[in-house]
């Protein structure tokens, strides 16, 4: 079972309900572009962060999710550092990632799956098992070439004694209770 908060909601919840928190976060944006001018990934983005926030205000979430921009946020927090409105654009980007994950948007599988397998590992072990994450991620991406991109690194890591083979899953995850409780609390709210 993967993380409930991301997977139980799924399609049943309206996009509007999902996006409410992002709207709340970025409503007060003044479109000054401070965030965008500082973004190290701006060059790779197909839409400026400022435009994303404009779309948030105008309720054009479809447009946001057709864009890859939010997945390109590397959480460097340059934007949050200087937002004159005191907003947290990096956090809002994370929130958009959450939505994409929760709604399992196919166009954002690459990012959301990675997070999902990461958390799956955390849930099971309490701590992250890097190899376990990668294995799960690569398997789910169903891209036979993808693992090769990381093959040399994986080999290097293993040879340096930095990766151990994942332990077999045994019954209850260490943080099952916490994940479940989070889901429960989120549900209530």
């Amino acid at each position, binding site marked *: 079972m993967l993380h409930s908060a991301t997977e139980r909601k799924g399609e049943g919840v309206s996009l509007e309900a999902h996006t409410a928190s992002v*709207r709340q976060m970025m*409503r*007060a*944006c*003044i*479109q*000054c*572009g*401070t*965030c*965008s*001018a*500082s973004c190290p990934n*701006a060059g790779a983005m197909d839409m*400026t962060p*400022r*435009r994303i926030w*404009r*779309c948030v*205000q*105008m309720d054009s979430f479809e447009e946001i999710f057709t864009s890859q921009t939010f997945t390109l946020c590397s959480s460097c927090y*340059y*934007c949050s*550092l*200087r*937002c*004159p*409105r*005191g907003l947290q654009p990096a956090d809002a980007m994370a929130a958009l990632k959450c939505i994409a994950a929760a709604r399992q948007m196919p166009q954002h599988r690459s990012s959301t799956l990675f997070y999902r397998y990461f958390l799956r590992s955390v849930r099971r072990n309490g701590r992250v098992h890097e190899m376990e994450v990668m294995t799960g991620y690569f398997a789910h991406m169903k891209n036979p070439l993808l693992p090769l991109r990381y093959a040399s690194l994986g080999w290097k890591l293993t040879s340096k004694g930095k990766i151990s083979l994942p332990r077999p899953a045994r019954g209850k995850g260490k943080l099952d209770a916490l994940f479940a409780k989070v889901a429960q609390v989120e549900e209530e709210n």
Partner: protein
Amino acid sequence: MENSNTALVVGAGISGIRAALDLAESGHRVVLVERAPHLGGILSQLDRQFPTNRCGMCRMLPAFERDAASQACLRRGLFHERIDIRLSTQITALSGAPGHMQVSLRTAPNGVDARRCVGCGECAEVCPVVVPDPFNAGLTTRKAIYQPVPHDRSTGYVIDVQACTQCGVCASVCPTQAIQLAQDGRRKFHILVVDDELVVRDSLKEWLLAEGYSVRMAASGAEALEMLSGQPVHLMLADIKMPGMDGVELLQRSRQILPELCVLMMTAYATVETAVEAMKMGALDYLMKPFDTAAMMDKVAAVFQEQMAEQDESIAVGAVILACGSDYFDPRRGKNPYGYGTCPHVLTQLEFERLLSGSGPFGGALLRPADRRPVGKIAFLQCVGSRDLQSDADFCSSVCCMIAIKQARLARERGGAQLAATLFHMDLRTAGLPYQRWGEAACEQDQLRLVRGRVHSLLADPASGDPVLTWLGPDGQITGETFDLVVLAVGQRPAQGLAPLAEMTGLSLNPWGFVRTQAHSLVRTDQAGILVAGACAGLKDINESVIQASAAAAEAGRILHATGGTLSVAADAARTPPRDLSADPPRIAVALCTCDGALNAEGAAAALEARLNQDPCVSRIVFLNRLCTDDGWRTLVDGLNDPQANRILLGACRSDAFTPRLRALVAENGLPSQMVEAVDLRIYDREPSAASRQARVATDLAMAVARLKHAEPVRPPGVSVVQHALVVGGGIAGMQAALSIAERGYLVTLVEKQASLGGNLHWLRQTLDGADLTALLADTIDRVAHQPLIHVHLQTEVQSAFGQVGHFYTTLAPAKAAPHILEHGVTVLATGCGEASTAAYGYGTHAAVVTQKELEVRLADQRIDPQQLGAVVMILCVASREAPRSYCSRVCCPTALKQALTLKRANPATAVYILYRDMMTCGFSETFFTQARREGIVFMPYATDAKPRVTADATQGPCIRTMDSILGADVEIRVDLLVLATGLVPELPPELATAYGAQLDEDHFFRPADFKWRPVEALTAGVFACGCALSPRGVAESIATAQAAAQKAVGILRRPTIAPDAVTATVRRSLCSLCERCIDACPFGARALSPEQDQVLINPAMCQGCGACAAACPNGAAVVSNYSAGQMLAMIAEVVKCDV
């Protein structure tokens, strides 16, 4: 307790000076205190101010009874008979009720006896301490002994006690022994150091001894207590963490023995909270370990200064005006320093101002301070520490946009056509009446580039060090550009001393630490008797500051009057009438201070005496020594005690400083003020040789003799005043003006053409911040009704008018009665304004398109139900801020926010879009802009070349199409309601204004004498305007203008006769060719052709002695008394050597 008829004004910046002068002009006495050692506040550093690109501060000086005050550049000092100026002074206590308040004043000794200082500067020459000069915002340096404002010679030198090392060199060179160092005092100042660690005690002792204090030490609390009971201790430094008795306990117990003992706690980071607790128990402050020696010594020195200060002086006042200004945000402390402090090419606006100044580091040349390279590209970054929630600044600092525009224009003036300025902003706030055009001119004439957007951060180019800015262009492109210089518009912060002052007086502050004013008032605080003016209630431009200061003066005057103060006409009359000198030949008594022999170098005195004695009019010459001492002054008084002498010439150093006492002296002798001249004998001290110095001094004295010889003792008769005011217009401004005049005891006729009083308040219900306007209207009407001195004429219009200050004749035409003529002394025009009509955006074709006023009315009478509204668009700046109505109406943006929030709160499901050009939410109304965004109101800027398009068909509701620059596409919104902000247009008939001698500006508003300095009066005396007749403004601002206009009116009404001043124009009829050039030339309308058209007449009350007439008249028929051609030629003859 008797009413002292005195007001206290705290702060001598522009607002303080304006308020003080206003009160003095209306006959009250004023004590003007300033914590800095100089007058002028921030404006002493700003040479030119928007929107005129020049100064003009002198225009604040009185227009009537000019002789009672100084009549020269205000930046060089101020004098007024009824204003007692106290520099380097703070208030330490304040108590009592309005009318009867007791204030304690404490003057910080600055080490120099101001009366003795001759301003020679020898002290600064030898002073070894060099510190950044705050006057030049740190761009230059000065010494520890210095002149606070270089162009203000009235203050002399002072010592910066923080920087002074007490070396004493200055005292040894001072020719007048004016310098008294605190060194001796320090030795008598005993400091007790209590710490269990020997190393700490030893280091502290060493440092403190080096600074000249006496030090004792104790290793424990118990030991300390013992020492306290035995010997005098002025200050105790106590460690918090000590074994046995800790610092806090020591504090408590020591204060039981010595309740007044000053204690500074010493603390490590871990125990800071304990230290803070200790401060609540009476510790003065704490010192943080590890010690910052310099900061620690500053704190100790501050305690020393405090304790050594002279005894507080207690004075009785009737009212207090706080005008203590504001401080500025330090970008270094901000989350975003924009390279300030690390990149040397980043300056604050104030620093840039000094850079541009002729008295700045490079004489006004536009060079980079760090490397003196000429500047080609400048970037102005707005909103640094303003409109920034990350620096707790959910407010706009109101003036920075205009300052940036001004500086861009100035820079262009200095840098020429190759200078390129770029201004980064989010909203260009050009909200004052003339500001829009000024901003447009900057773009058109000076090629100022405007960029809407904010720069994330400033990085220095690794190679050149030049600042590099990166921003997101409107098209979504990230742009990087290198500039030579970046100027930061740093925002306002509350003045340093405001919080303690508020605590002392119980004054409420707003969430940002500025003074909170009462609803509908810009000047009333929640403490009766304490009023506020200027930037301490939020930064303001000069225009608003001056209005607010006059309004505060009006309120203070009201309090003084209500509690028994008089307008002191009696005091004026009690002055000895000047002797009649008309028949006496000029006899000049000359008194010269030898300044301890400085004047008499190489026998110069004798030569001087010989030269002066050449003129038979010089009746005697007295040499005296040290006029600056009491003895010296006594010699002067005795020496001049000559009944024959009818003119006095004084030669001394820093003659300006003697003006007040000299004025008093000649008044006692029954001489009019023009019969005394003072010459500064030390002003040429920098001349290369003694000979040239003496020659110039001799020439100055000879010129003064010539001037005095021709001084004219006779003045034209005064102008009598009908002590009755007419107020035209019964809106809120008119009513307030009438009330403010009547409350000072003068009759007012209030004329309103409608059937009831109230004007626009009939349909306005509340303000953006929720203040109740309906209640305000009811209350004001009630107060007018119960004011016996106000005569209200409803349904009455002004049919015609003529006359001049003191005597206007106005024909009032009631709707249902015969016209009658009213005779009155002053006129206040409060004709208001109305919402502009429009045919744009489908207005008039579709019922769902309404104006802001219509929305206001329809919401009130429930013709519009917010529950029924799915979407609403508001379009701002409809036919405003572009030709021909190139001005901002100021009220529309706040109104839009108010209405949008109302709709959104009534129905959160309503989508509200505001289409704007620049949101003008200046000052603290910015917070509502933030609120509106938070509540989901969508703001979309539009450009004038891509305005929104509206299609309206009757079935569907209007559809608005607008270009969203962020999305780069048209957005289409179908709405149930389209609200248009059409702006305000004045309702002041030109013939009404001109009948009283006033003029209208190009937008048909009342043209003030000077937008900045004389904002509510016409250039023609006795005519005032208030409210929206002046320019568009909100209710509280209108009320302030009404109070200001009333204050000005009272300044005239209080005099039964306006006595002309010494410098007044007259006509020599025998020479006059009646060409009437003088009439055209007079800017004050003081000249007119007689009804018979055979002579030119002058109203001496209106004449300001400017001399424009004399310049226009070719044959000397227009004469300015005491600046007559004969007088001037005689003076010139003393200087000019060649034959002409």
